[in-house]
């Protein structure tokens, strides 16, 4: 999550008073976070851009309703998550009530397969933009619901309770999915950061 801005309150107040430049300044602090949330959840750049555009406009139109009980970022990312979930629902990739318990054949991910310590801290092991790209790629190996939960909890730092509420899921489902996601991503990243890593870093793309 971005560092707290000392002037956030004054920007919010100005935006609420009708200062559109203040709103844009405010939003620009968080737009790449919103885009990352959209990309993580939807899995493609076009949808991520739509999520950014639509949630930004909705936030602009509704800024007068922002109460200030939470940070502006928390408020706007909620709007973005709802937009992104709407995309998944349209593509029938998000089902509210079905199959929230581990499915047959998924159990395997509970058993760690890659048991290898990491040679170096990932942040030191590769260039920052390579790391950003790698993380964006491996998170797509999770199913949509799991990567949404992981993104909210571990990337955007919402609590388990907030994540559950935001997604309309029970806390046990969130916890189970989170554990499985963390273990799966650990497996994937060990292929890159394990002492005997076999995978090369991804090559530059967008």
């Amino acid at each position, binding site marked *: 999550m971005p560092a707290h801005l000392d002037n956030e309150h004054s920007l919010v107040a100005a935006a609420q008073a009708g200062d559109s430049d203040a709103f844009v300044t405010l939003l620009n602090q968080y737009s790449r976070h919103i885009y990352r949330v959209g990309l993580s959840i939807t899995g493609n750049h076009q949808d991520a851009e739509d999520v950014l555009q639509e949630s*930004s406009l909705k936030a602009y139109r509704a800024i007068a309703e922002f109460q200030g009980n939470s940070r502006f970022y928390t408020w706007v990312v909620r709007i973005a998550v709802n937009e992104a979930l709407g995309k998944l629902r349209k593509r029938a990739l998000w089902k509210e009530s079905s199959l929230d318990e581990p499915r047959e054949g998924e159990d395997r991910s509970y058993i760690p397969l890659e048991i290898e310590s990491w040679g170096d801290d990932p942040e030191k092991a590769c260039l920052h933009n390579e790391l*950003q790209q790698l993380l964006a790629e491996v998170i797509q190996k999770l199913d949509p619901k799991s990567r949404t939960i992981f993104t909210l909890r571990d990337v955007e730092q919402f609590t388990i309770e907030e994540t559950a509420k935001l997604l309309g899921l029970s806390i046990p489902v969130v916890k189970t999915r989170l554990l499985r996601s963390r273990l799966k991503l650990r497996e994937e990243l060990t292929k890159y950061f394990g002492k005997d890593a076999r995978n090369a870093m991804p090559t530059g793309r967008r």
Partner: protein
Amino acid sequence: MRCRQVVDKISEYIDGELDPELVRELERHLEHCEDCRVVVDTTRKTVEVFCHTEPAPLPNDVRERLNQTFRDSFRKGEPN
């Protein structure tokens, strides 16, 4: 505690949400189980690397289209 139970408790352990009695049991297990130590350590690092890594800057074309959307919206006089 067995390896399987350690894996089941990893999330709560690294989030500091595990019951203190279970923490003691888990840590006793870690003292003599190298594999579980590796799994716990690399799971913790997995979470850390995701939460520490700043997102990439917005692609220029995405930023430009967002700005254009706002300009169009402001021209129409939304929302005030």
